């Protein structure tokens, strides 16, 4: 894919290096389908994708669905490169409501009151950013926004501030939306 260039309000250009889209049980990197599955459930799709991408990272299986989605998208773009100066800026619509709903079910009744710390920790949308940061040793700028719809201009403006101020050299940026079986990731790498 040719790098896309565009000009923002203030002088500097940014380049979009690579992008990954995950939806409808498909992973597309730079317009090429790299994995496709017949699985109908997200959990099965994620498991198959994990195998197909040869990820070998057992922590993946403990993650909630939002983290798995974001993690898979990040894996296709970050690979084994050095990302000690790559920031992460993500956004979505449903925050962590997929896990919030599951956690709430565990505390709804006094008879079946079993709150689990392993579930509770995923009731924050930025946990998926933490998971990616851990995997790639990214002690870098990170932010998570909740927006009504994907707003690429907004995310790019925010990313540009991080790049221009010298706080990072690249930004892994994008949309990581999931609620139950409805999901879409669109994640890309930006540089100046």
């Amino acid at each position, binding site marked *: 894919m040719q790098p896309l260039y565009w000009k923002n309000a203030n002088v500097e250009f940014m380049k979009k290096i690579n992008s990954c889209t995950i939806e409808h049980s498909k992973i597309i990197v730079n317009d090429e389908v790299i994995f496709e599955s017949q699985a109908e459930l997200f959990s099965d799709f994620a498991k198959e994708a994990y195998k197909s991408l040869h990820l070998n990272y057992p922590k993946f299986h403990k993650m909630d669905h939002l983290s798995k989605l974001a993690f898979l998208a990040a894996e296709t773009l970050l690979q084994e490169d050095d990302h000690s100066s790559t920031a992460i800026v993500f956004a979505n619509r449903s925050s962590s409501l997929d896990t*919030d709903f599951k956690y709430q079910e565990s505390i709804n009744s*006094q008879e079946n009151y079993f709150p689990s710390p392993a579930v509770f920790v995923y009731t924050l949308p*930025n946990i998926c950013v933490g998971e990616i940061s851990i995997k790639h040793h990214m002690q870098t700028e990170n932010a998570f926004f909740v927006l009504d719809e994907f707003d690429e201009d907004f995310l790019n403006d925010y990313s*540009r*501030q991080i790049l221009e101020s010298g706080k990072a050299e690249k930004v892994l940026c994008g949309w990581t939306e999931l609620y139950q079986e409805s999901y879409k990731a669109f994640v890309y790498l930006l540089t100046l």
Partner: protein
Amino acid sequence: MKQDVYITDYNCVTPLGFDVSSNWDALLQGKSGVAKYKIIDSLDAFYASAIDHEKLEEEFNRNFERQDFTRLEKMFLLSLKPLIEKHTISEDTAFILSTTKGNISLLKNQTTLPEGVYLSRLAQKIADFFGFTTKPIVVSNACVSGVMAIAVAKNMIQAGRYKDAFVVAGDELSEFVISGFNSFQAIGSEPCQPYDKNRNGINIGEAAAAAYITSHPSENEKFRFKILGDSAVNDANHISGPSRTGDGLYASIKNAMTEAHVSPEQIDFISAHGTATLYNDEMEAIAFNRMELQHVPLNSMKAFYGHSLGASGLLESIISMESALHHTLLPSKNFKEMGVSHPLNIITENQTAEINYILKTASGFGGCNAAIVLEKC
């Protein structure tokens, strides 16, 4: 050259009062919102910092006619109202809302998601009420959200996207959050004691806070604080445990101070996170020492307000600015005996001081950290 961005107005709604001056008076007298509350039927009462329900209703009814708002939304509206009355909303005005769990209480016993639990819906409802025309931005980065919301306002104004911003931050006490922190065994059995030898966990709190941030301050502003630098760096270590090395907090402070062109000797006061869990406070002490900030007067507001999650960073920034305006450092309440392995200059009583440069920090789940540097102008 980046344009300068200032905080010129703020307000807060907390268990200690429904405006800044009542909060300040209560803090000077050492009052705390922390008390024992029965929040979950099947469990014993917890120490938490709660807003009196009847007083909140009374205050809301005095100020607003419409009633179709949740308790949290009422807190947001009350905190924003005085700022909206003083500053004009234009098509270049951002609306930034910081929260971790929003209206999560609406989820109880539901089989489908009520609209109100979507954070963007919550933000839109508040935005529509006051007539904002730009799309609301929700910052949801666990416990650093309130500090980050200030940074987001600064960065998006500097990006040329907006001229000014109203930032509001809030979270309420809920069974959801209390049960979760309790399952982590992170809740203290007593009123919390940040940095103390006997600290054993957090008290959850609730609050809303609001600030007006602009690149075009008017002549009539009573005060101005310039947002000099900001950063939010991840520990890349653990999703629920603080880093043992303080790497992320250290890097956040370093980045923010570098952007601010401010040295450790210039910082007059640190408003730290200080949740009173064993590992968080220890991690902070390590990070502050690595930055050579151990001599700077420091406090945690958690024993006054509890940990109000998405509200805490903005609320504590506001109290820091009040400290600077009143030339008064507030103590880190409930701190008696040093309980972290590295030295810190923890404030133990109200004291007079000249405060020009403030460092505000926060850390949270997901390995996130945030720091901002403010200058009194």
